[in-house]
């Protein structure tokens, strides 16, 4: 039976992990390669690197990190952050990434996802969606996207039933007026192989995943959905799968700071009837 996946996520800036990681016996707590190896040892199912390096010129550093990780760690590796061109994707895959997460570049040009999937295969194209729940008194926003007339149905309308969620970019700062569920469906249709769904309302709060958001998207698309943002307890992880219908769970700080370890997380979920690889 297919196991649900547990995926630690590392934020990497200029080749170093930010928001320190609390592993014992690490020679260098900021080295993404060492941390990746430690997570493999613990039995993580996949690993995600999010490159938050501000400057596009420093991308070579991340490629080096990916290269070294791929030499040491034999598990699926997803890399996201600042992926803008087919060349960026090619370089990451060549360095040893298995999947590449696309976020802002997809919002600016949805057809980019189609081109990427046609060129490299759906299996390596992850579309990352940052979504926030739409407030009932949401003011009318004029989206400033060049393709809005081509795909008007993807945008929020005053008549949309609630709850609804809006796609944001730039770490939740920029609202884009896009209806998150319809966006996810479109990304699947363009060939995305997976959705990495982050609730910007819950991210960093440790109050649990946004289960309604996750369920709405997971039931609307035919591709796997990774839930992200808000996990703080074992119960949150369980709910993410059972109520949020997530195929995989991504978490950062609860694993990095050893509030939970991967083995205890998996044992707990398995004891509650979730298929887990132990």
């Amino acid at each position, binding site marked *: 039976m*297919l196991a649900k996946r547990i995926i630690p996520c590392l934020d990497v800036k200029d080749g170093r992990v930010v928001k320190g990681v609390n592993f014992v016996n690490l020679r260098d707590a900021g080295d993404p390669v060492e941390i990746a190896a430690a997570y493999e040892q613990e039995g993580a199912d996949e690993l995600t690197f999010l490159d938050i390096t501000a400057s596009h010129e420093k991308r070579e550093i991340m490629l080096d990190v990916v290269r070294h990780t791929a030499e040491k760690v*034999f*598990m699926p590796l997803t890399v996201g952050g600042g992926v803008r061109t087919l060349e960026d994707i090619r370089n990451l*895959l060549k360095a040893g990434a298995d999947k590449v997460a696309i976020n802002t570049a997809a919002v600016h040009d949805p057809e980019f996802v189609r081109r990427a999937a046609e060129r490299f*295969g759906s299996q390596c194209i992850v579309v990352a969606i940052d979504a926030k729940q739409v407030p009932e008194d949401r003011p009318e926003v004029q989206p400033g996207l060049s393709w809005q007339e081509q795909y008007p149905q993807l945008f929020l309308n005053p008549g949309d039933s609630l709850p609804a969620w809006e796609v944001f970019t730039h770490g939740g700062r920029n609202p884009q007026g896009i209806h998150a569920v319809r966006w996810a469906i479109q990304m699947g249709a363009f060939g995305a192989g997976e959705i990495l769904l982050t609730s910007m309302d819950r991210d960093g709060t440790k109050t649990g995943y946004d289960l309604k958001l996750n369920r709405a998207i997971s039931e609307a698309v035919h591709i796997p959905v990774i839930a992200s943002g808000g996990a703080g307890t074992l119960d949150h992880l369980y709910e993410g799968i059972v109520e949020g219908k997530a195929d995989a769970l991504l978490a950062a700080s609860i694993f990095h700071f050893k509030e939970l370890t991967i083995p205890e997380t998996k044992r707990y979920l398995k004891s509650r009837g979730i298929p887990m690889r132990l």
Partner: protein
Amino acid sequence: MIAVVDYGMGNLRSVQKALERVGAEAVVTSDPARILNARSVVLPGVGAFRDCMANLEKLNLLEVVRKSIEKGKPFLGICLGLQVLFDQSEEFGRVPGLGILPGEVRRFPDNLRPNGNGFPLKIPHMGWNTVSLRKPNSLFEGVPDQSYFYFVHSYYVLPRNPDMIATTTDYGIEFVSGIQHENIFAFQFHPEKSQKLGLALLERFARLQ
């Protein structure tokens, strides 16, 4: 030396590094002479069946792969490298494969459900799934039945000869996840992404003469 056939697709570096990790000498190459002189051959790959066949043809590697197998070299196909061994795939209509093994490649149906009920299963089949041993083979020696391996694919093989089936896996339907026939070993899952058990499998492949 093990030749990892490079036809411009997929994460070949991972396959090479995994083989090196288990002590094998592995080169990534599209040079027909090097492949034909190698002791063993690995055909990896992810992506589209049609592109894989087109690239192999463009690089004059169709015959090279065929000859390597005919010569009896230990041969390992991974994912797409399993699928292209068969007669044809229903991807984009009908695309002919290498035709080394009789059978075809099909897409998972859209309405697959776990045990026939519940919410439809996602496609691609992505993640760690268990493998049921159907036939003893040297690569699986010591691997416990129902061990987890990493999969990512939307198509599966349907061999005409059931004697070739080495392993099967359940994803709404029971599909063939491993083939063993004479010197051919081919798996739908990715040993190079399957941590310890995957590396152990590659290590045993690397030792085959």
